[in-house]
């Protein structure tokens, strides 16, 4: 089987500081990879390098494209990469404001991504947008409201709908439940888990919340100071952590 994403030696420096160093891994279709570590461990830097938001200093990010097979995303032309970002890739930001257009309606936010890939029949776009709002538990009656009138949890669900409407094959998520109330977080996690399973999505989820990865991720990468220090099956890494830092991380989780 060809990996969907094959990352080799990815390195990003900020001047003399290391963002992430020599990261290599493969992601196979249908797999959900969790990247955990404390603030400053390099997990967001890594995600942004993978998604093309940051230019790494070294390495390869080879994506199995629909039309041409495996290609290094880093050497693609900007329009090609942007097209990938609108079709096969999706990026769910921690702050919905970074992933939504706050001045256009909820329906418009979902429809915009459809139009970007060539949809132009208004009725069909609106119908699909309504369907997707339903899937993320937003009432069809709110389709013409702006996201600024939505709660934080609703905004995050809208961002997910906007991202998934084009049927992407790879979803990047940066702390998708960060900054939400715990009850809202739980519902959102259930929703993401359901969508990921049902659509057979491949995803890379960055979080500092181990409960999130226990629920969503098939396997884990633990990062510290820009380096990957441990990898493995999610339940194995959490139940039998090997590296000193991972043991500390797992034992630091507060029990209710």
């Amino acid at each position: 089987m060809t990996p969907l994403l094959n990352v080799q030696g990815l390195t990003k420096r900020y001047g003399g500081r290391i963002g992430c160093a020599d990261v290599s891994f493969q992601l196979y279709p249908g797999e959900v990879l969790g990247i955990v570590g404390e603030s400053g461990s390099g997990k967001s830097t890594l995600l942004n390098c993978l998604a093309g938001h940051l230019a790494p200093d070294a390495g390869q990010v080879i994506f199995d494209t629909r039309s041409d097979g495996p290609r290094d995303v880093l050497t693609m032309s900007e329009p090609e990469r942007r097209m990938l970002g609108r079709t096969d890739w999706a990026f769910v930001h921690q702050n919905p404001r970074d992933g939504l257009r706050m001045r256009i309606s909820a329906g418009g936010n979902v429809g915009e991504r459809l139009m970007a890939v060539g949809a132009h029949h208004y009725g069909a776009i609106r119908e699909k947008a309504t369907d997707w709002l339903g899937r993320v538990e937003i009432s069809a009656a709110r389709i013409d409201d702006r996201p600024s009138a939505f709660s934080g949890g609703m905004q995050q669900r809208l961002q997910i709908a906007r991202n998934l409407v084009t049927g992407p094959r790879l979803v990047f998520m940066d702390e998708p439940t960060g900054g939400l109330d715990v009850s809202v977080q739980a519902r959102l996690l259930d929703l993401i888990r359901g969508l990921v399973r049902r659509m057979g999505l491949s995803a890379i989820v960055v979080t500092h919340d181990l409960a999130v990865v226990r629920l969503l991720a098939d396997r884990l990468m633990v990062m510290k100071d820009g380096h990957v220090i441990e990898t493995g099956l999610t339940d194995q890494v959490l139940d039998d952590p090997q590296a000193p830092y991972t043991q500390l991380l797992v034992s630091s989780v507060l029990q209710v």
Partner: protein
Amino acid sequence: MIPMIHVENLAKNFVLHNQGGVAIPVLAGASFAVAPGECVALIGESGAGKSTVMRILYGNYLAQGGSVRIGGLDITQAEPREILALRRETLGYVSQFLRVVPRVPTLEVVAEPLLALGRPEDEAHGTRARSAHAAAHPRAALGAFAHHILGR
């Protein structure tokens, strides 16, 4: 006959890095085989390593040495996705404590393995899930949450 489970020379230590790096030896030189259709009981006193063996067989704990072959796959060398495939298709695990998401109805808990195998939703939620569910909890409502069930 090829054994279903073949454990050879299994070794396991727990190293507690944050408690002065003490190493707790649990298993050394453990070997056994289980034939297809055979039911084997693992007995021993508390702390003897029974659960550790079971968790290694399931891929939940890492072994420090030896090999564990289940259905031809060496768990100690396998990639995470190979272990996940084995768990979906070959290997089940009944634990003393069912770890479920508290918000999920029991029917969903039973249906999930079928969905993971790619079965259609109506089938997963249909006869098989309902019968398994009824066998486990005849009087429980299908929509009840799993964590409300006694002795889960």
